[in-house]
């Protein structure tokens, strides 16, 4: 039931926990999401294969696309549905996930939050699976003890469940039915709108969440990342059901979706289930609309200040950086780890250990288009915004002018090697990380991104610091607490 601001994969491992609250717009309709997997892996990853890998399934109706790192990609030939298969027989469970390549980036004024509202309405029933029949998605999954959820972010929407392998077919049938046979009733929108509005209100309880929302809105002028995934309040309250119908009929098609199956399955049997339940659907009658908006050049530093009741201040310094697929992202990831991973990280030493901040971190929200990098610090009692902002900037400047050491880079690489083993423990985490790479446009980065991090040099880190963190390209935000009118601590 808890709203989860799920972090992009790199935030999840690198950044102090408080920064989690600042992650951009991932909203779940349902129970708390499983923790995002770290974006980590080892160097020992097979190169992309040109033909079916040993063990890949040959099932009529599917086209084998490629195999990378033990994950096979297929296309359901008749309608363009992408299928990723990652067999894992360590436990008798399977995670089944559908990722739609639609997020709040596809919204415009008046429909902000529509992607998320639609995600909620996807649990209101479909033609063949609904509460009156006693077989709705929540009834089925709770009956079989599944862990399930859905979430919406800027570039994608996903629905998933981890279940006993014997329950897979039942869930695939339900998930497929709601792809094209969803109920979208006015009465359901009316009751669910106030549910979402309370979700919106809960987010507004947290000053840091509000600050990050405003920093993001200032950083992006033209790209739709400007508006929060949950939407503006007035849009949530007034969006008509017709707009949601339109949204559903534009984006919820097999050729705009990727099915991921991770766990204890026989590949041929799993593909057979996908074909059985998704094979009846056609491709979208119209091409999926592309986003052609480009962000104009930023021509000077931007600042945001929010004042509201609270106790401790916050400083965020954000910069737009390339999309999540860009070749510079591994070096940026290395930079963030050196800044914020553990007690030896530079921000810990410079801010936390010196008593300026309670915590500090750095991370990037990876996007399909321009991503957003953030430096963050929560002020310690007695610190000022000015000195904390200055300390953050000084650490960035040190990397620009003096670079990082080979020892720092080597240490981060060792952490990646260990994390490769950790990510093998559990199917849900793997599916979740795949979901985020699907969102930025290349699922194989799940495998290849860590390889690329292991090739990063100290010079690479210094180069990207100089290239992307110019003062004129920054958006700086302060949360300035003002006294509460309530009596405290009684």
């Amino acid at each position, binding site marked *: *039931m808890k709203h989860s601001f799920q972090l992009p994969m790199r935030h999840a491992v690198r950044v102090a926990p408080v920064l989690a609250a600042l992650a951009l717009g991932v909203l779940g309709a349902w129970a708390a999401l499983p923790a995002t997997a770290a974006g980590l892996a080892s160097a020992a990853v097979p190169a992309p294969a040109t033909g079916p890998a040993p063990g890949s399934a040959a099932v009529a109706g599917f086209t084998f696309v490629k195999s990378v790192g033990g994950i096979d990609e297929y296309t359901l030939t008749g309608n363009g549905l992408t299928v990723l298969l990652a067999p894992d027989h360590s436990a008798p469970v399977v995670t089944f996930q559908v990722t739609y390549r639609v997020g709040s980036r596809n919204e415009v004024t008046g429909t902000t939050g529509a992607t998320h509202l639609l995600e909620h309405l996807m649990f209101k029933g479909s033609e063949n699976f609904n509460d009156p029949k006693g077989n709705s998605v929540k009834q089925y999954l709770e*009956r079989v003890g*599944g862990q399930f959820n859905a979430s919406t972010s800027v570039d994608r929407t996903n629905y998933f469940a981890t279940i006993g392998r014997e329950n897979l077919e039942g869930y695939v049938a339900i998930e497929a039915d709601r792809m094209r046979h969803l109920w979208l009733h006015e009465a359901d929108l009316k009751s669910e709108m106030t549910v979402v509005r*309370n*979700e919106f209100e809960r987010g507004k309880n947290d000053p840091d969440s509000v600050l990050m929302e405003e920093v993001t809105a200032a950083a992006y002028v033209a790209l739709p990342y400007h508006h929060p995934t949950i939407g503006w309040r007035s849009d949530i309250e007034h969006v008509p059901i017709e707009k949601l119908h339109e949204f559903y009929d534009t984006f919820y098609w097999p050729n705009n979706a990727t099915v991921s199956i991770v766990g204890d399955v026989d590949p041929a049997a799993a593909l057979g289930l996908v074909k059985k339940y998704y094979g009846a659907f056609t491709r979208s009658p119209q091409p999926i609309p592309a986003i052609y908006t480009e962000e104009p050049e930023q021509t000077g530093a931007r600042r945001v200040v929010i004042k509201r*009741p609270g106790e401790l201040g916050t400083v965020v310094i954000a910069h737009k950086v390339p999309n999540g697929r860009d070749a510079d992202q591994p070096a940026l990831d290395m930079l963030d780890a050196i800044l914020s991973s553990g007690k030896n990280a530079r921000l810990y030493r410079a801010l936390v250990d010196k008593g300026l901040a309670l915590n500090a971190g750095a991370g990037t929200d990876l996007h399909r288009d321009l991503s957003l990098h953030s430096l963050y610090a929560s002020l310690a009692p007695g610190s000022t915004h000015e000195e904390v902002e200055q300390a953050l900037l000084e650490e960035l400047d040190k990397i620009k002018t003096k670079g990082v050491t080979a020892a720092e880079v080597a240490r981060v690489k060792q952490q990646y090697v260990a*994390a490769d083993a950790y990510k*093998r423990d559990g199917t849900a985490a793997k599916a979740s990380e795949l979901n985020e790479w699907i969102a930025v446009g290349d699922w194989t980065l799940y495998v290849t991104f860590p390889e690329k991090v292991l090739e990063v040099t100290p010079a690479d880190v210094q180069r990207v610091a100089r290239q992307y963190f110019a003062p004129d390209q920054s958006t700086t935000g302060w949360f300035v607490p003002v006294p509460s009118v309530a009596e405290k*601590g*009684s």
Partner: protein
Amino acid sequence: MRRFVCTLGGLSLLLLVNAAARAGMAEKSHRESIDAIDVITYPTAVKDVVVILGALPAGDAMGSGGNIAVPTLAGSMLDRGTKALDKFAIAGELDDVGASIAFEVGTQSLEIRAKCLKKDLPLVLGLIAAELRTPALSTAEFAKAKQQFIGSLEASLENTETRAGEAFGRAVYAEGSPNRPHTVAEYLTAAKSATLEETKAFIAKYYGPAHLTLVLAGDVSPSVTHAEVARVFAGWTGGQDYIRPAGAGVSPGPQDIAVPLSGKPSATVMLGQATGLTYRDPDALALRVGTAVLGHGFTGRLMGTVRDKEGLTYSIGAGMADDSIADGDWEIQASFAPALLERGIASTRRELDKWWSEGITEAELAERKQGLVGGYFVGLSTTGGVANTILTSIQRGYDVSWLDQYPQAVNALTRAQVNGAIKTHLNPGTMVLVKAGSLPAAGPPAAR
């Protein structure tokens, strides 16, 4: 400081059932007392990964009678250096192999959470032992720990869930109960006056092998692991048991407590009472299953009506909390916009009253049993899940074999037992209601 834990109905039950449904957990586990430490190893199918979870009775409750900030300060000093290594050297050793160790202070326990590769287990166990046995406890680091604790306390002053939990716990638990929370203001005062000498004395009294539980799951060899534990903890002495008072709850009668906070568009509501039950009480399981019907998941009655049908909240659930070691409580927790607060509370009470007076149906009981037992595979699908399930069960006073018996215990419950437990141990008419947030002025709720 004390963490507020709202176990949304049946969550912990689900974990237990998940674990238990797999026959032979007891056979796969290896339990041994090593220099008074209760060590349980559990090999899983995962390769190279080891998860270590531990619990030592040195939680917030042990601070009562002295400076209440000291247990948290003591726990926060552990990764700030040992007699042999400063904090940066410790972090460097862990970073170099991608391992992690974390300590957290809860109501009754200092909790230990670590993760490493199999080859690094001796290193990580050695660091855990050194941090527990020979923390540096330097004056400079103590000052930093105090500053950070005070800062986190100040931040929590504006958290509606923290403040609601604080007010609720103080209303339903009697003085002397380990579950009775202190206020944030009390913690702040205590933290400011806490001394390093008090912290040293606390560690000397409470940190020791007696009543320490360590669970190691994953790619582990029991014999090798147990030998390593024996090596790194050899010669350690001391330790205290958990606090297990009888009759920790109170029945104060109905109360309506307001905790006004500015700038909070969503209020947190808690409604409940002390149960007088620990997890092992014969009626506790029946009450848990009945509570799951009311407030667990999206097919629970509260979500099905207050959220799905009426659209009054994003989040509502019911559960039993803080009953692993001492008598716990039963609670509903929800969030409402201030303008919908009274309507939300009225709907919640309506569902609660109906559930309490009419009980659950045979169909609801059957479905809930199936879901709980069916979730067994999912709960055991990660090494962390296995380790957590075992540790929780040990803390509740069970042997690992209980996990194999658990599904049968759930399946054996009858509707009469469940409804009887609800009626016997709960009374909606005397429950405590807490509202925390930007509360509306008295009067009828405004139209929205």
